[in-house]
């Protein structure tokens, strides 16, 4: 694992995953072709779920990739990067995602609430990582951009 220097690059995130209690995919965005087919992706998701859902360990090296993760009630959040990536950078992405969702879901970070707010999830991830590049790390900014403004937020919630 002793490698000479990688090419410096803004491309840090390989994938963002959200799995449910059974390890099934609720959301997945792969930013490169490490797992090119849906079949390989799902096999990877199954593998990391099996290796991580029983522990509370936050970080692991699986299939040669660094996986940082966090769980909440019945949801499992994963940010995947290469094994040479700065682990804290990956954690920053994970925390931004989690904190943004936490605000948007009013602290109910669980499956049912998430499914009722899939738009918000899609938009939030879109604001955090673009094509594998970290776009935003501040959850406040992310939430602001997704919900436009307080006024819009109220209007939106009234329409539900």
């Amino acid at each position: 694992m002793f490698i000479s220097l990688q090419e410096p690059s803004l491309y840090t995130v390989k994938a963002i995953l959200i799995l449910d209690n059974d390890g099934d995919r609720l959301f997945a965005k792969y930013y490169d072709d490490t797992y090119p087919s849906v079949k390989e992706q799902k096999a990877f998701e199954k593998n990391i779920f099996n290796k991580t859902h029983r522990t509370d360990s936050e970080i692991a090296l699986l299939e040669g990739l660094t996986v940082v993760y966090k769980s909440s009630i019945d949801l499992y959040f994963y940010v995947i990067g290469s094994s040479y990536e700065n682990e804290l950078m990956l954690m920053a992405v994970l925390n931004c995602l989690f904190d943004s969702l936490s605000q948007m879901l009013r602290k109910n970070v669980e499956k049912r609430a998430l499914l009722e707010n899939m738009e918000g999830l899609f938009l939030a991830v879109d604001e955090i990582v673009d094509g594998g590049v970290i776009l935003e790390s501040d959850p406040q900014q992310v939430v602001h951009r997704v919900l436009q403004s307080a006024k819009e937020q109220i209007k939106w919630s009234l329409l539900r």
Partner: protein
Amino acid sequence: MLKKFDKKDEESGGGSNPFQHLEKSAVLQEARVFNETPINPRKCAHILTKILYLINQGEHLGTTEATEAFFAMTKLFQSNDPTLRRMCYLTIKEMSCIAEDVIIVTSSLTKDMTGKEDNYRGPAVRALCQITDSTMLQAIERYMKQAIVDKVPSVSSSALVSSLHLLKCSFDVVKRWVNEAQEAASSDNIMVQYHALGLLYHVRKNDRLAVNKMISKFTRHGLKSPFAYCMMIRVASKQLEEEDGSRDSPLFDFIESCLRNKHEMVVYEAASAIVNLPGCSAKELAPAVSVLQLFCSSPKAALRYAAVRTLNKVAMKHPSAVTACNLDLENLVTDSNRSIATLAITTLLKTGSESSIDRLMKQISSFMSEISDEFKVVVVQAISALCQKYPRKHAVLMNFLFTMLREEVRAGIWGLSGLLIPAASLLPPLGAPVRSTVCSGYRCVMDDDNEVRDRATFYLNVLEQKQKALNAGYILNGLTVSIPGLERALQQYTLEPSEKPFDLKSVPLATTPIAEQRTESTPITAAKQPEKVAATRQEIFQEQLAAVPEFHALGPLFKSSPEPVALTESETEYVIRCTKHTFTDHMVFQFDCTNTLNDQTLENVTVQMEPTEAYEVLCYVPARSLPYNQPGTCYTLVALPKEDPTAVACTFSCMMKFTVKDCDPTTGETDDEGYEDEYVLEDLEVTVADHIQKVMKLNFEAAWDEVGDEFEKEETFTLSTIKTLEEAVGNIVKFLGMHPCERSDKVPDNKNTHTLLLAGVFRGGHDILVRSRLLLLDTVTMQVTARSSEELPVDIILASVG
């Protein structure tokens, strides 16, 4: 007030999960609503969400249906609802590769990008750049440049990141925007600065002078963004490496100064960079190491992990530099994150003293089962290195590896080779004292008969490393060596000091490994007969054989070979075909003979058999008379090997012996006197398949679990002459004579891995199940796992595959 999530709710109604039963064509049908006016933003946004959800789940959209949906979506630009607009941008991005003519939205996006709604501009830029090609890009070039220096950070970031993506196909166009990017790099916004510097580097990276200038300019003024710092540290490291820079370089000073940055992420990046620089002295490493030492006690697992992982790397080349951290590493040995604990232990093994080895090995043994395969490799590598450093600790270390292999390594064949190969580097050419330590360690594990093959296999692999290139095939070759012969040879080798490496070829070949004799007291169950036709044939044979007095005591017939084997060519004087009948402890060979010579009659015909193995010929039941063209049958009764019950495969050389009496072809009269003659037949093979009756298991998994792993064994083999998985599967199925289950005899196209599931009943009524994992690289490698309710069938299967 969280409502308790009830899984039953989700499964019973569609209410809790609005996406549960989505059906693609229904959803795409719904998209027709987009054409209606006035537009209902909430409804339309929800439909878009469903489409995106489907795509996200891996649903495939055909070009036509995607294009139709895309075009319908373009109608939604008429609405000014911000969330709907944002969802449109997302849809454009998701469908840009699967729908046609997506550039139709270019003008709408360009309008949004330069419009008044700040919330639209960033996302519009990103969507636009995803559908743009080089030609179109020139048309919007001035808008992009404006966006890069826009005061709204999200707009600027979006433009910068999009420019980065566009470098791949439009480098020459994007290159012209460096001035704007340079300006953006001075932004107070930490993300904008990061993106700008990243873009600048990617554009200029082949111009070393420009890169150096960039680094010195921005590092002089200080950076606002921790992300930008990380990027600059990496750039500086790369420059240092390429320049073969001295440590006096300002680049190094910059990196070193980052060790004192207020952001952990930057400090860690700097420490990591220093550690990875080639040719760093212990003194240069020291500040990086002390920072990492601090991180070892961080409450954040990711930081502890990052720190201990980096220290582990340092310890590989400069163990003395890490000794100062020993105490902190000790604390990590009991970390709840097993990866951290493993890394701490393996680092300590490099930096700690000889006396700590026993304790550390014990610690790591306690949680070997919990760590991932990647870390098992780390452990083996660490131990291999230790064996060279502390020869006195060989016994402890080798024992650990043996245990680990036996108990823990079930990860799959590639995992196994990956572990054995580094472990095999245990024994460089060392002197006799080391060899004898190792051999005595080996001898003491020989006591456990059940593990003989596993241990011997591993050890042979280790020894083989000295002879030639490592190759998992040596596991296969090793099995053909006689184990007691090996021990004797090893003993000789250690007693006589020699500079020559141990010669495996000096060990006698045998195919009879040690195994205990089994005495069966369980009742012999009749063989399972899945096909009605075979049953009838078997019943016929059973009757015929029962009529022969010599065969009365044999018990029930287990299996008859499905087709007779020809022991002569078809046009010869005598045509002999053989059917093999397997009983519990015996085999009866039935020879159906035809005399095709019209001037002879044969009498007292028997087929004499000479086995190569420990089969014992008990008696011959002759065919009394074989006149011309009248088939007759003779039998040979053979006892199965008692001393070595696993030696079921055997070759018999066969010779027909008889009395010839000349005969008048026209009258049929035969002489009274005859003479003894013999006639050589082809060799007859008895294989493992003759001892197994095929049995179909509809649910292989259930049967596997039911049999249990008490007598499970596993081996790995290389099939060096086989080039395709289909060939391997066909050969194995034929060779073992077991029934492929769950259609596992069909190898899907274009696969290079496959699992073959086989079921059968072994002579004596024991279920035998085999799971064979195959991997095709340039040859086929196979991991065979066998389970049975008795040990003997498992041993036989593995012995015969070997």
